[in-house]
């Protein structure tokens, strides 16, 4: 049953909120406590018209009402709290990045230039550091052992003088240049320099890619 006119009238004329609720209770009891949604909507509409929003300004939590004083305590509080919440999430995210790694060091010394024979591919550091050391007549380079196709480890075939990837057949020259199979680009080279004590230092944190024209850069190879 919808609201009768009288009921509507009495609701509109309610003097205070307490009053309002007692009228509501009355309406409810008249209907044996049944309070269907359409009725609620009707009542709510009257309520909203009767007690416009502004009347409750600065009374409730979570409300920034006074446009004149946007910078009031509440705003300040929420801003600070939002900052702190940001801080909390920053803490969590920063926590996920350790300061120190226990992985094998990314840069390491591999010996003196004379330890490497010209024209040979040195496989000694393949297992420990994932790197091939190749020396030709004028330079030494450090090649990544990761195939540029799908990341398998190619094998060095001394007879064919090529790296052959067992996964999909990509082939690379000893310079790292690809020449067969699906590999899209040559093997990557690592930074290779002489350290103070004359030993060769390979630094895997710095890569040189052929397709970016980086193989000419100074530290991508070591002149001998």
């Amino acid at each position, binding site marked *: 049953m919808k609201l009768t006119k009288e009921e509507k009238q009495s609701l509109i004329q309610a003097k205070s909120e307490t009053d309002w609720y007692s009228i509501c209770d009355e309406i409810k009891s008249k209907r044996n406590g049944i309070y269907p949604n359409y009725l609620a909507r009707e009542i709510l509409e009257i309520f909203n018209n009767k007690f416009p929003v502004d009347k409750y300004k600065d009374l*409730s*939590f*979570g409300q920034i009402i006074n446009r004149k004083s946007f910078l009031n305590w509440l705003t300040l509080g929420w801003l600070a*709290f939002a900052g*702190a919440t940001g801080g909390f999430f920053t803490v969590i995210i920063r926590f996920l990045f350790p300061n120190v790694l226990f992985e094998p060091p990314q840069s390491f010394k591999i010996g003196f230039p004379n330890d490497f024979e010209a024209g040979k591919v040195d496989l000694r550091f393949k297992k420990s550091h994932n790197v091939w050391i190749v020396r030709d007549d004028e330079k030494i380079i450090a090649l990544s052992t990761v195939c540029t196709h799908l990341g398998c480890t190619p094998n060095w075939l001394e007879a064919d003088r090529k790296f052959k990837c067992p996964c999909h057949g990509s082939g690379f020259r000893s310079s790292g240049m690809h020449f067969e199979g699906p590999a899209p680009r040559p093997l990557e080279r690592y930074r290779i320099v002489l350290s103070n004590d004359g030993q060769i230092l390979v630094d895997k944190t710095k890569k040189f890619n052929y397709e970016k024209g980086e193989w000419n850069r100074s530290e991508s190879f070591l002149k001998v």
Partner: protein
Amino acid sequence: MIETLKNTIDYLSTPTISFTVITAIFPFVFPPTDWFDRINRKLKIDKLWTNTGGFIQFILITGFFVLGYQDPNFKIILMKGDNFPIVLMVYSMAFFTWYAMKKSYINDARLDEGKKPMEYHDPEDKVLVWPDLVYIEFICLILFMVFLIVWSILVPAPLEEPANPAATPNPSKAPWYFLGLQEMLVYFDPWLAGVIFPTLIIVGMCAIPYIDINKKGDGYYSFKERRVGYFIFMYGWVVLWVYLIIIGTFFRGPNWNFFGPFEYWDPHKLEVLNNVNLSEYFWVIGLGQPLPSNILLRESIGFLVTGIYLFVLPVLLAKTVLKKMYEAYGPTRYTFLMILGLTMLALPIKMYLRWFFNLKYIIGIPEWFFNI
């Protein structure tokens, strides 16, 4: 001057003295009967629960810690990271006890005047949870988090040597909240102090609402209406738990020997430990005989004493002093209360027996690991 003060404190904090003093003072501070209450008011002990009283308590505790911080020996103990919570415990326990008691006394005064307690409000006059409660809870949590963060920044968490099963540190202590139990171990066998008592503590605590048949004082602070309840609870809580934790933390040094707060923890300190069993008292000292070889006969006197304490005493009390109570409680509740109460009482009793008579065990059957 300060040295004298320190020595006095060292002397007073000996368990025998401090425990006795606290126990003796306790009924005057939390008077369980009218008689104690009268003296309490005469001596103005109730002023303890006013703002001034609280302030004095605060000053005394702080003074002690400041004094302790200046002392090289106490500073070492105080500065251990894990002991900081205990300082916090001392302050918070003192504050909240004071605060609850203050409110109780105010309410008591109101009740005397025939008013309702402070907490009373017109049942119709309620408050919406949003925002009032939600808001203050929110603020409370934020402030607490700030406190926790600041504490964490200032005090690094302790870490000692790597665990070594071959090297027992001296003293080796349980976590601070179990130190009360560890202290009980001095006076009781592990099966009592470590198993039976903790179980009874938990069971007994759970049983409080079922034992306490006092209908008054529900939902507001009031001392007057629940004097006995307050007294027993506070005694168990403050003396038999918190006080023992403080002893265990600050006053127990190498070899679990007692050290005054300002004493150096000398690992060589020796204390007399000539403990005698009741059976030895009876047979050897009393009757001048050797101990009977029959275990049960040997310990018969112990069983007798224990039996009297646990079974005869409650009956006697029910017939005499506690007659009214027995009637009010009914047999089941009364029995339960007696078991819990007597067990709780057993701790101070055993402590005194140990201190004054060097009594080791009332029943001592190490053959069966059965010692009381």
